[in-house]
């Protein structure tokens, strides 16, 4: 047993050195073959790097699952403007804790990924936007960047190749919405952290008004290994449409919560039962949120036939998101759980779009009323109809994130709501 829990089912590529503090040191990292991928990428040339990543089938690990190589190829070829690579390390989705670990245990892996990514898209500057509350991760990352500069792996004329790539670590100030790609850009530029209207898309007008690409920490970390070992090697893990390994952040009522790196397509029930050692106290499974709090909740039956890849989750009506599996046993008060999540979104809504600004807090108010036994059945209809108005009507998808757990929980756990609502009637009758 090492880093909190490990499992034999794991395929540890990105998380290989989790739990080993010595790996943070640049010396150890280079000794173990670090920064080899950068050299290799410089020899391959940007187009080849993009092709290799395209070939690997790597999909964005931030939640949307967009193919990374394709995203990179959107960058203009001869814009004459500076390009920027942004690394989204503002990991704020409730239930997610993979990026923090990737930075804490293996900061150079990320830096190397950033260098490759920046090189591939023709950027001379990479920004790592790190969540404000990650104090330890921030200081580790800052130290690692300093070391990389000192050893000539970043800055001017990297490894004598003539390539200049600056790396800046930017510490956020603690807003969920700054993890949205355009909100992050605004925040980075010193504006209010509010998502921008798209189009224009970041590849045309991104950070500082220049063509930019934004990638998740895990995506860029995986890029290092793809360049090292080739796209075909990466494809041996996972499924046809969702290749590769993925860090699963399992939290909730399991015996061994934690980060587990598994090939995509891993069955959810196997993850809970075998990898995480089953549900606490031998309780029955009630519900799972497989991709972080903003995806639809699924019940035990759906969980039993859910495979953890982008397509498998869609089949049972939810999303893989950033693979933050929140497991709930049969002692869980679903209404309270959903209310708690909606409270979070109401608090974190940036306040631009009306449906989100007003809808999220209204939803939270109604849920609170139901939770305290003062709801009515009509409230459920109102919630369903009102949250429908919050889907696809706003600039970013934060309001969709409010709608997903509310709608799915009312559909699948209506009895939980009704028992709270009926309690009120019983009290009244007595």
């Amino acid at each position, binding site marked *: 047993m090492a880093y909190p829990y490990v499992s034999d089912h794991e395929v540890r590529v990105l998380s290989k050195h989790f739990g080993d503090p010595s790996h943070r040191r640049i010396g150890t990292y280079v000794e173990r073959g670090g920064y080899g991928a950068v050299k290799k990428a410089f020899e391959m040339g940007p187009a080849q790097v993009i092709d290799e990543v395209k070939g690997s089938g790597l999909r964005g690990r931030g939640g949307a699952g967009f193919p990374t190589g394709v995203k990179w190829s959107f960058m203009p070829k001869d814009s004459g403007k500076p390009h920027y690579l942004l690394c989204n390390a503002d990991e704020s989705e409730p239930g997610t804790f993979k990026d923090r670990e990737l930075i804490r245990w293996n900061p150079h892996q990320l830096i190397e990924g950033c260098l490759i990514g920046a090189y591939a898209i023709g950027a001379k500057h990479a920004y790592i936007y790190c969540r404000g509350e990650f104090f330890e991760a921030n200081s580790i990352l800052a130290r690692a960047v300093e070391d990389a500069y000192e050893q000539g792996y970043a800055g001017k004329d990297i490894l004598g190749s003539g390539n200049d790539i600056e790396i800046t670590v930017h510490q956020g100030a603690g*807003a969920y*919405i700054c993890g949205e790609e355009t909100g992050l850009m605004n925040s980075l530029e010193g504006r*209010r952290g509010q998502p921008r*209207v798209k189009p224009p898309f970041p590849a045309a007008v991104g950070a500082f008004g220049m063509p930019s690409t934004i990638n998740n920490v895990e995506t860029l970390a995986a890029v290092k290994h793809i360049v090292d070992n080739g796209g075909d090697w990466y494809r041996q893990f996972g499924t046809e449409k969702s290749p590769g390994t993925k860090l699963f952040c399992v939290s909730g009522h399991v015996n061994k919560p934690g980060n587990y790196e598994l090939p995509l397509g891993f069955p959810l029930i196997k993850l809970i039962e075998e990898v995480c050692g089953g549900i606490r106290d031998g309780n029955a499974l009630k519900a799972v949120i497989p991709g972080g709090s903003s995806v639809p909740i699924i019940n035990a039956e759906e969980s039993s036939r859910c495979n953890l890849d982008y397509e498998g989750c869609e089949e049972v009506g939810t999303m893989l998101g950033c693979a933050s599996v929140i497991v709930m046993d049969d002692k869980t008060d679903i209404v309270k759980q959903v209310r708690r999540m909606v409270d979070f979104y*109401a*608090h*974190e*809504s*940036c*306040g*631009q*779009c*009306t*449906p989100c*600004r*007003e*809808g*999220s*807090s*209204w939803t939270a*108010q*109604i849920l609170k*009323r139901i939770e305290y036994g003062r709801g009515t059945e009509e409230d459920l209809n*109102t919630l369903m109809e*009102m949250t*429908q*108005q919050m889907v*696809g*009507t*706003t*600039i970013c998808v934060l309001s969709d994130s409010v709608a997903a757990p509310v709608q799915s929980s009312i559909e699948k756990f209506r009895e939980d709501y009704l028992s709270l609502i009926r309690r009120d009637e019983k009290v009244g009758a007595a």
Partner: protein
Amino acid sequence: MADMVNVTIDGNEVSVPKGTTVLEAAKTIGTEVPHYCYHPGMSSPAMCRLCLVEVEGAPKPMPGCVTTVMEGQVIHTQSDQALKNRRGVLEFYLVNHPLDCPICDMSGECNLQDYVHAEGREQGRGIEPKRVFGRDDFGGDVLFYGDRCVMCTRCVRFMSEVEQDHRLTVVERGNRSVIDTFFEEGLEGTHWHGNIVDICPVGALVSKDFLHKARAWDLAHTPSICDCSQGCNISLHTRDNLVQRIKPRENLDVNAWWLSDLCRMDYEWMNRGDRIEAPLDRSKGGSKVLGWKEALESILRATERSEGSVKAVASARASNEDLAAFKRLVKGLGGGEIVYRSPRIEKDIPLKGFPQLAVRRDRAPNTTGANIMGMIRVGDDSATGGLEDIAGHDGIVLVLGDALEDQPNTFGANAKLYVYVGQHESAATTSAHFVLPTTTKAEGEGTFTNYEGRVQRFWRALDPPGMARPAWLVLGALAAELGCGEVVRSAADSFAIMGVDAFAGITYADIGDRGTVINEIVLVTGV
């Protein structure tokens, strides 16, 4: 044209220039898509989400304010999806917007009222308590009712993009977001902040000056022209025969949608009660009220008796028609130079985001008109002094529109004939042999010529007090009797017979409510 795009909006095929937004394209078929955050004079953040329209082929409803039309697009602004969305968004607005319409100044001209009435739910579903911000004094003329705010951020964008003085911002996030000023600075000292009250779609930003003064539906609106040489297009909002407030009137050639605070607050003079209400004859001592016919005949008889040269004072606040009639009268009496005085401020105060608009240095609406007619500016920048040789003149003294507030009561005491034509009396009018009451710009029709030579019309908003008549009518009749010009019965005819080259060939119909540039711009800067 190559740069036109053909689209179908609600079944109507329209052709609009490339780059036109859906919202503007819909206007061409007379459809106003409801919106809050969009304002044609500022950037569009697309955040109110009210103008979402259905575009065939698009996966989601598109915001009409930032979506530019593309060839062959089929757009529905009134489809089920669009209406459902608007209904939903309007309900969201009412989650926290107080229903205090009965005590809200915006009531009656409020977009939220109108939209909800037209497309909203019949019955609200919100029973939750609303969040409360209370009121805040933003400084200047602006009071902020935070509870009513719909967070369109037009005011923030006006201050940062148009006035370019960052005085407002949004603080906090989510539904705790609220507009605020920076520390104690507020809007004090800015020159255009009144516009944020105009562009606020609800009653969140209200004018302190207008607070609880009148209900919007009781106000009559009359197009008019503002009182500085910029010639901003304004609307006089009147009730009980008083001007209650001034609002800007859209004219992209002059002031677009904006109006300075200085001009906005300059209306009380139109409501003064101490007006001259009847023609007065003081030539035989005392003060005798005359009928108009009698008064004009008496003045004509007096001119026959009076000898000596004519000296005349006009006003740059008088209309082109008034000044032309005055000039004809002076000519009929044997000529003589006409002077005028006008106030000036230190320098132009331009609106940075729309620099062709400024609070002009010249604080009178018709200095250009006076200059074109050869009148000469005298006196200082406070519109005082400069009349020394007229005050003691022993011939004929004529005054039009200048109340002579700074002059002593001996003004015109030596004159053989002193006729004062104006709205108010002052110490300097006591020696006048005849006093004739005339109307202000709010009480009659006419035209002003602005600093760039644009001649613009104003209309009658108030009833004149007592027997007050437009100066062009009274002075024109006198001049006609003296053989200069003819008798006219309307401001339009009066304009037509002015006989000033710069205005030749222009008619009231040409000017319309947008104005027109005069033939030959004769800009004489005066003293």
